[in-house]
């Protein structure tokens, strides 16, 4: 500690301006200043010093405890802590010791600054951002010289071809972005709109229950029930393609209501004995929908709460979706399993420009 402190002699505001000749020190602001306890009472200052040092000491302790916890606590141990419930012991111990060791460094440093470092405000002058006129003039002169020496203004042809070259050179870089999408063999020759407009569904394709891939008989589905279903060949397609794209379009829900509850459908007799098949993908922005209220036959999207009435052609009754849920015409095959009678008549999922 040096014996010169900027604090000394400046407590009274009158002395403020004459002071500053010492290098490294700035003029003290002309503001009344109240000394802190640590300024006037050596005991308080020593107490503050001890507080700061203890915080740093505790920080070291917690850093050491972190290492102990890392080594000693098994990662699968679960403990019960009131308020927090059942929690991973390792997670809690590591978080607490790491947090405490870091926090205490900060707390110590701030206590040090607030209690023991000078709290007398000092003054520095600002300067306008604008450059001195001489500098501006010189910059302008340099620009003129550059223009003159390069002949940028004179050589019209050079100037124009340079601008042309600079405009064209990024084009190859942009063109190369085209192959960000490399169509698969099946997608060859199709536009994005075509691809979005087709699903796996076609005539006589069996409807299987999602998860078990078991074909569905009409009697499997009670009135008021809903199941998620996919086309029978989805599993193979996913194996071949190695992605979930087909699922994202082909997922459907089957709901059953008593036939007299069905007010309208997207096509005559597209149900089978009150069983209706609708796309599962919301026509708003594509969230899968499965919140079904059987009493009202309303289907609600959990993302943005678009609501569709499945007893009334899947029309929108509320929410931001603009289009009804596409319906899939269904029937049964010779063995009595539910099948699609055709693919979807319109693209499923969110709207797109070319959809029409």
């Amino acid at each position, binding site marked *: 500690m040096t014996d010169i402190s900027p604090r000394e002699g400046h407590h009274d505001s009158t002395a403020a301006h004459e002071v500053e000749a010492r290098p*490294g020190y700035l003029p003290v*602001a*002309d*503001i*009344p200043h109240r000394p802190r306890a640590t300024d006037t009472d050596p005991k308080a200052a020593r107490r503050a010093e001890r507080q700061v040092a203890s915080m740093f000491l505790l920080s070291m302790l917690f850093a050491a405890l972190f290492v102990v916890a*890392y080594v000693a606590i098994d*990662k*699968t141990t679960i403990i019960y802590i009131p308020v927090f419930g059942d929690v*991973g012991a*390792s*997670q*809690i111990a590591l*978080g*607490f010791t*790491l947090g405490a060791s*870091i*926090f205490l*460094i*900060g*707390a110590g*440093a*701030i206590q040090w*600054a*607030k209690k023991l*470092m000078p709290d007398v*405000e*000092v003054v*520095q002058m*600002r300067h306008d951002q604008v450059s001195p006129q001489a500098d501006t003039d010189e910059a302008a002169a340099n620009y003129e010289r550059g223009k003159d020496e390069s002949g940028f203004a004179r050589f019209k042809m050079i100037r124009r071809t340079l601008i042309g070259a600079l405009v064209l050179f990024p084009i190859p870089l942009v063109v190369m972005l085209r192959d*960000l999408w*490399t169509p*698969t063999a099946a*997608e060859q020759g199709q536009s*994005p709109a075509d*691809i*979005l407009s087709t699903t796996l569904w076609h005539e006589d394709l069996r409807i299987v229950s999602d998860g078990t891939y078991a074909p569905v008989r009409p009697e499997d589905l009670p009135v008021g029930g809903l199941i*998620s279903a996919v086309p029978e060949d989805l599993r193979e397609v996913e194996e071949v393609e*190695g*992605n*979930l794209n087909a*699922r*994202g379009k082909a*997922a459907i829900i089957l709901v059953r209501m008593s036939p007299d509850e069905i007010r309208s459908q997207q096509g005559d007799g597209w149900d089978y004995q009150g069983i209706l098949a609708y796309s*599962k993908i919301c026509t*708003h922005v*594509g*969230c*899968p929908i499965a919140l079904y209220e059987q009493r009202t036959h309303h289907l609600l999207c*959990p993302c*943005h*709460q678009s609501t569709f009435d499945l007893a009334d052609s899947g029309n929108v009754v*509320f*929410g*931001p979706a603009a289009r009804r849920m596409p319906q899939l015409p269904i029937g049964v095959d010779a063995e009595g399993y539910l099948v699609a009678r055709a693919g979807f008549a319109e693209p499923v999922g*969110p*709207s*797109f*420009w*070319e959809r*029409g």
Partner: protein
Amino acid sequence: MTTTSPVEKAGGATAGYVDQRIGSNKFLSRNLGKVFPDHWSFMLGEIALYSFIVVLLTGVFLTLFYKPSMLEVIYDGSYVPLKGVKMSEAYASSLDISFDIRGGLLLRQMHHWSALIFVAAMAVHMFRVFFTGAFRKPREFNWIIGVVLTTLGLLAGFSGYSLPDDLLSGTGLQIARGIMQAVPVVGTWAAFLVFDGEFPGTDFIARLYGVHILLIPGLILALVTVHLMLVWTQKHTQFPGPGRTNDNVVGYPLLPIYMAKAGGFFFIVFGIIALVGGLVTINPIWIFGPYTPDQVTAGSQPDWYIGFLDGALRVMPNIETVFLGWTISWNILIPAMVLPGIMFTVLGLYPFIEAWVTGDKGEHNLLDRPRNAPTRTAFGMMAIVFYALLWVGGANDIIAVAFDLSINSIIWFLRVTLFVVPPIVFVVTRRACLGLQRRDREKLLHGYESGRVLRLPHGEFIEVHQPLSDKDLAVITSKTDHLPLPAPEKADAEGVRNKHYRWQSMRHKLSSFFYADNVPKPSAAEIEAGQHHVAHEAELEAPLHEYEDADEIRQYHGGVLHHPGEPETNAEQIEQQRSQH
């Protein structure tokens, strides 16, 4: 300065070595003692900076364990409920970080929490800068950088939210893809290019990963650097107060005060994030299961900063038009593209709009008190309320369940209030600011109302007013009265028509609106007369105070702050006070 210890000697030698090569001492001589003003609200930007550093540190750790791959694997880690489940490598490695790497969950949660805090701190910092007019000349560029940083913060957060490839993150991406597809003309192609075909594809996580860990943080880091360099060279703004002018900075020097305070504050922020990351669960990805495009969880919510966009999507009526066979999804375009586009553009351009309206070309280093710019304050409050209502919309399902309300009525309520409430807030805020201005004027002219009633010897009752403290006086008198731009002339004296009449007239009207009803600050003479009057009242009351003061001194004196050499009796102290005055 004499250096004594060997460490200091070595330090000095190093400084000399470096200086001979890069001239660093020139910089140090100017900047080690650089003065920064002190105010709690100046810490908000610091929180943003420090939480960003924590995001970077924890993020680097996560990259060592996370695998950005959508390759399908069978999970075989410690989390029993998902054992044997098919999932992407991205999700499996996120689970491994959470369950099989000691401290992994802590770092993952710290990463998420610090990202949330980063965006929140930027938002609140922006409020501070906006309401105090710190964006005015010469700091407009830094405001724009701040707006860009906020936008990048949202992108950084959203891209990170999407990486674990759990059900929730995939749903977020599905929505983003739906929005992309709704863009007229190019939307479908853009979505196919970005996702390498249909959703979800197998490439997107890997692509997003590069964006999340390199591109966006690189941009943020670069812009933060410029942001800080500008703060440094332009010097920090300060609030009005005694001794503070537009041409000086009053505060504490970098070394040692801010080295300790700001450095310490970094550790405080870091430490708190570690504690929160250790103790409070965020985004428990193991609950949701792996992503598949045909499943979703009820009550799925984005991170807080995307909430307003989600709310806008929910509140928007379902308008879609088909024009010549082309589909335009207004129900998606307006809330998810047009609205945020307008919001961020207006935000970014605000300094220029205000400067144009007011015609103010001066440099401003002294901050405005929000009440002294009522129109700006009201505009800001209006924007915040609008944003908050959208945010409420983003949580409409949660609110509906929690308060047993109908989702439909919440949406209809929001569709109306989004247009009705912000203007009301504008008017109310403006009136409140003007009321505060009037109160300030009262204080300057008549001092504080003390609530003490005094009966004078001739029977008159007066309320005693107290003079303003130096600080209050400086703060209140910092208000500058601006005049609206003058109304333009239709034609000049020689009858030449003013071509810019309509433009100037609009500007005049806006400017008049901006400064309308401003309560003028009393003149210096009026203030002096007012404070003089107050002093006179205080004098009338003085005999009463002698006794009261004596009493106070006794209490004070009984405290801990007595030091040798100080007066020991009340009489002595009163004597001393008198001699001081």
